[in-house]
């Protein structure tokens, strides 16, 4: 597990730093190439979003100077950069990547965008050849984990902004918003936003009323709605299922008696008041009527924060999934880790066998093809028999995390070349690995 990860995110670095480190999409392929060519780095992926820059690498010996790469690339001083960086290696890097992909590290936990961004980053790096075996496996796993987290927990199931909370509350009352009518009282930015959300969820008609009639007309035009004179407010308000109110009035403009009127005219069909005015436009007395639901700014805010709390709870579940997945991933990689040792062990014995056959052949003179084949079969048979137990042991040991010890012992016993040298020739070894050891898990 020679993964290394370095980066900054919204928690570790202020916006100014993140701004300086943001990599525009067009520059991303070059950055990946540059990264993969950096000393000590075999593979690399760069994830750059507005909230984070992450460099994920697979390195030659697990100690590549990623900080150096960042300094060089962004032309930043050590003291500007270092305090904001986090760096993870091995298992921790895997865990961090899994968390990022699953949107547990996001500013809004559970938001769906990040997975897409990570996937794009992966595709970009792959396209320029900066990704080969190891990161390939790591990222495929990360995507699978993210999918699992999404499927098995409710992280990301609930929405967060005030406008979308308003929509959700409206849906709690009306079920579908299809064909519902919205009434905006007091044309303001926030009510406009809320209305836009409601319309996006199927609300059909919209009325706008404002003390300055022109502004009502202006806003109504935006939504293809109808402007209502402020004096006509009480006469037409009962046509609306959802009323968004945000006037600057110092007193409540909707009082209990208005509510009673509305309900009588609506045959008691429920009405939902979203009161985002401070001071409030709707008197709390009105909320005591059956069928009238009022949410003021505080209520909405509370709903928003409870969503965040809900997500936290779910996030704990998600963390447990990730811990399990990191373990599994590690176990899998370790199995792969012993593979080079097995391969070089086999190579080693094969060399001995060939040398011995050559030596014997010199002494025995010419051999018939049958004799050649018999010797071949005999020697191969012996080696395979002898090798069987050690290889099985190595493979099992790999899963039980004593791999390093056993691998070390085997290497010493057979005087196999050291790891550093071996990894340099790994691409060649990999090819034999596939055929000789059979398919890896």
């Amino acid at each position: 597990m020679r993964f290394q990860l370095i980066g900054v995110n919204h928690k570790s670095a202020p916006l100014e730093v993140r701004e300086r480190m943001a990599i525009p999409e067009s520059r991303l392929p070059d950055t990946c190439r540059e990264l993969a060519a950096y000393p000590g780095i075999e593979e690399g992926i760069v994830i750059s979003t507005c909230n984070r820059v992450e460099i994920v690498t697979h390195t030659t010996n697990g100690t590549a100077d990623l900080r150096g790469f960042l300094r060089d690339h962004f032309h930043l001083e050590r003291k500007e950069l270092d305090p904001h960086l986090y760096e993870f290696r091995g298992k921790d890097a895997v865990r961090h990547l899994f968390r990022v992909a699953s949107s547990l590290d996001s500013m809004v936990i559970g938001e769906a965008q990040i997975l897409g961004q990570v996937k794009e980053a992966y595709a970009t790096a792959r396209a320029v050849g900066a990704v080969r075996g190891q990161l390939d496996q790591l990222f495929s796993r990360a995507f699978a984990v993210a999918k699992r987290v999404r499927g098995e927990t409710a992280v990301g199931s609930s929405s967060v902004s005030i406008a979308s909370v308003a929509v959700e509350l409206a849906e709690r009352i009306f079920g579908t918003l299809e064909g519902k009518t919205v009434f905006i009282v007091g044309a303001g930015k926030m009510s406009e936003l809320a209305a836009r959300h409601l319309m996006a969820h199927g609300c059909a008609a919209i009325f706008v009323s404002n003390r300055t009639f022109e502004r009502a007309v202006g806003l109504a035009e935006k939504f293809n709605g109808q402007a209502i004179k402020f004096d006509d407010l009480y006469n037409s308000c009962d046509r609306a299922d959802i009323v968004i109110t945000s006037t600057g009035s110092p007193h409540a403009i909707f009082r209990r008696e208005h509510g009673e009127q509305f309900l009588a005219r609506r045959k008691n069909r429920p009405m939902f008041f979203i009161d985002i005015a401070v001071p409030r436009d709707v008197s709390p007395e009105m909320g005591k009527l059956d069928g009238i639901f009022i949410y003021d700014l505080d209520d909405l805010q509370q709903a928003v924060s409870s969503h965040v709390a809900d997500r936290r709870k779910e996030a704990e579940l998600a963390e447990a999934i990730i811990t399990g997945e990191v373990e599994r991933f590690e176990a899998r990689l370790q199995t792969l880790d012993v593979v080079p040792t097995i391969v070089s062990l086999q190579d080693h014995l094969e060399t001995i066998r060939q040398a011995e056959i050559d030596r014997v052949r010199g002494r025995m003179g010419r051999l018939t093809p049958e004799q050649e084949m018999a010797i071949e079969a005999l020697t191969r048979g012996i080696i395979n028999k002898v090798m069987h137990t050690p290889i099985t042991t190595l493979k099992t040991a790999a899963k039980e995390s004593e791999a390093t010890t056993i691998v070390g012992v085997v290497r010493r016993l057979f005087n196999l070349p050291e790891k550093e040298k071996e990894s340099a020739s790994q691409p060649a070894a990999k090819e034999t690995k596939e055929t000789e050891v059979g398919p890896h898990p």
Partner: protein
Amino acid sequence: MSLLWLRCALGCYFVSLIYAFVALTRTRDLFSRIALHAASLGMVFHFVSLTELFLSGHVVWASVHNGESLLAFLSMSFFMLIYAIYQTTSPGVVVFPVVFFLTFVAAVDQQPVLLTQYVSNKGWLAAHIFLIFIGYAALLVSFGASLLYLLQERRLKAKKPTSLISFLPALEVIDQIGYRSLLLGFPFMTLGLLTGSVVAISTYGHLDFLDPKILLSVLMWAVYMLMVFTRWNSGWRGRRAAFLATFAFVAALAAWAANYFSTIHRFAAS
């Protein structure tokens, strides 16, 4: 044999019954799925039980327990119908316990308490029982829906953050379930009572309106009609509708209990 199947059904309904108790505090999707499967399986057993009873030849629908079994089955069918339309298991909170209770009584105690055997017109009797039972099942569901409506209304009014995550469907959906069951059940109930009167008149020659069974049935029907009317005319829902629904439900229970006292159904007599 029929009894054995009925007891299997009872076992399944018991699982759904547990759901009815945990649903209010826990909102995991898993529970409702388990409850739904258990209920469906229970219905299969129940259906087998009823069919066997029917095929066995000595079907006596008018026996209290067979009647209870049939009513439970119809209520469950109604619940499934709502699930098919609205994808919600929440009415189960009210339906499951009632169904369980009915099935339990039917499955445990099988002494044949019989309606008078002197009914002259068996066809009318069967129609009476079926119609009125569908009416009962619909009434049960609309009663359940009105309780759920109150609950959801309270949650929304309390503005508790937890109100956002809830096993309950949207307020208007609950309202629709209740209203539609009401509208669907009313004609059945009315026809059921009319056919019942026909049976009674053809058997006894007259209707004794002072008989508790008849008195309570008429009362129940009156409340039922009042519910439909207030809803249709002035859109009564929420607290007032729940009050009426509870009243109608209690009247229905009383009318059912009256089986044991009434001379019309003569259950007590045998």
